[in-house]
């Protein structure tokens, strides 16, 4: 309940702060956004202002809608008690023309994505009765995590080309084949390997899709809650929000979410990566001491 209250307060603040900002966005902005990996920023692209004189007249076009959004927590700490969490992406449509939350006037797509990292896909085949890895394909990069939420199925919201260009949807996750693999693999096989990466990650709960998970609460306020599983690979995440009206992107927004080890977890990880041999010795010493203690303790018990 507290979380919800905080969310409303923040959303109200967002609304208050954004009153009077310039109308922004468009498709071009969305493209920059999808490629950008800088910190929090809002893509601003001004559209020609309406003539102030005309504004007072009746024929003046309504100001263009823009989206402002944020995430419930910009920094998530992975401590020894981490068992997964939920990220709430919320936002509001400025200059909303939507009569009510249920009107379905706008469509919103929220994408939460991890960092791209190399991955190897392998295919088994039966060799003399045993299932053995016989085919392999290297991907230079695949997002470690990918979650998508939308107001309705994304195919109904936007054109295939747009979705593809912006890496929206599980069919369009950016998977870049490594050149050494691509040159010796048939295109059909590459597709099969790509599908396999998405399928396996979906099964592991690292790639998620929720078609009706973005919900409008008022005529301008929306929210989506996205599950972050406990085994999510540690690294920064990027949240992208797209606002659509009849297949046209009106505005986009991007926010970074930090996902970092903290406290003991960070210390152990640092120790293991920076001084691996010493870390190994430490582990062995711990094992030896535990063995000695156990035999000493039980010998005394047996003697008593």
């Amino acid at each position, binding site marked *: 309940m507290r979380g919800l209250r905080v969310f409303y307060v923040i959303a109200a603040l967002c609304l208050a702060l954004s009153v009077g900002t310039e109308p922004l966005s468009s498709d071009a902005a969305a493209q920059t956004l999808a490629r950008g990996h800088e910190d929090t920023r809002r893509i601003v692209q001004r559209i020609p202002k309406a003539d102030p004189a005309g504004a007072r007249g009746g024929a003046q076009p309504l100001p263009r809608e823009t989206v402002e959004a944020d995430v419930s927590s910009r920094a998530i700490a*992975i*401590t*020894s*008690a*981490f*068992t*997964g969490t939920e990220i709430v992406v919320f936002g509001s449509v400025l200059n909303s023309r939507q009569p009510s939350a249920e009107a379905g006037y706008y469509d919103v797509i929220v994408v939460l994505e991890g960092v791209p*990292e*190399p*991955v*190897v*896909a*392998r*295919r*088994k*085949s*039966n060799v003399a*009765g*045993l*299932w*053995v*890895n016989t085919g*392999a394909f290297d991907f230079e990069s695949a997002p*470690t995590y990918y979650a998508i939420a939308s107001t309705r199925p994304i195919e109904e919201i936007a054109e295939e080309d747009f979705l593809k260009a912006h890496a929206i949807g599980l069919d369009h996750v950016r998977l870049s084949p490594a050149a050494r693999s691509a040159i010796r693999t048939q295109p059909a096989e590459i597709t*099969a*390997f790509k599908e*396999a*990466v998405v*399928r*396996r*990650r979906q*099964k592991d709960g690292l790639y998620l899709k929720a078609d009706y998970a973005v919900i409008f609460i008022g005529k301008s306020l929306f929210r989506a809650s996205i599950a972050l599983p*406990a*085994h999510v*690979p*540690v690294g920064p995440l990027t949240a992208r929000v797209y606002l659509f009206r009849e297949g046209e992107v009106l505005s986009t927004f991007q926010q970074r979410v930090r996902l970092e*080890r903290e406290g*003991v*977890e960070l210390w*152990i*990880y640092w120790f*293991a*990566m920076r001084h*691996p*041999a010493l*870390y*190994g*010795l430490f*582990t*062995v010493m*711990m*094992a*030896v001491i*535990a*063995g*000695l*203690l*156990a*035999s000493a303790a*039980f010998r005394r018990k047996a003697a008593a």
Partner: protein
Amino acid sequence: MHIYLPIAEMPANVLLFLGMGSAVGFLSGLFGVGGGFLLTPLLIFSGIPTPVAVGTAAAQIVASSVSGAIAQWQRNNVDIKMGLVLLAGGVVGSVIGVQMVRILRLAGQFDLFVALAYVTFLGVIGTLMLIEAVGAIQRTRAQQRPLLARSSGQHNWVHHLPFKMRFHRSKLYISAIPPLAIGAFVGFLGAIIGAGGGFIMVPAMIYLLRMPTNVVIGTSLFQIVFVAGLTTVMHAAENYSVDVVLALILIVSGVIGAQYGAAAGARLKGEQLRLLLAALVLLVCVRIGWDLVATPEDLYSITTSFGGAP
């Protein structure tokens, strides 16, 4: 109750792993084996990445072997000289084994190799133990005394090799080559499958080297402490695959379980114990083998380098 494992990058149910550690510890105390051959598959089944399971089990083996070796030491059941020769071989085998893990992981055949090694060795050892235990039980029923395994003056091909050494505690005068080779083989295998290799070492010492049975377990445990310790350090240094948090859970529960297991073992008959162990070994063997032959749910699998390792 969950705790996040920093290297495996996943939360672990503490009670589950405490239970697993104490159960394996109990069995290792009961049967006088390291228990790595049970622990590693159990860790893999419960979702721990194979390299982390292998690297972390090695740390647990150190702990359980230390308490076992001390108990044997106090009964003067350790042939230090033989242990050192086995260890010299073990170090070489272990170094090669850890390199092999890296190569196999890059080639995508690591899981297959581990599974094949397990099926082969557990299958062979389990079957031999089963036959021996059933035979022993039948002999007991027939009120016969068990046959002595060794009589002096008995020789096999092992005794015709050069570089002969005298092992006082084992009452042996044999070539250093077979113990070196056995040590190397067990060290190599241990590094790959995350087991101390006691279940291979013990039969090899009895049947190939013809060491007296009373010094076999102590000597085997003595050298396993060092080989498993070295393997742990090398897995940490080369593969970044030792999870100290998981290791701690398994070690604490393991050493306690082992003490209770040893106490329980003293009250059971040897041949019944061996029959139970044989059944257990074969069960693990069948379970791992099944995954090799059963049609997988998905022919595709994906792997990433975890923990920043290349």
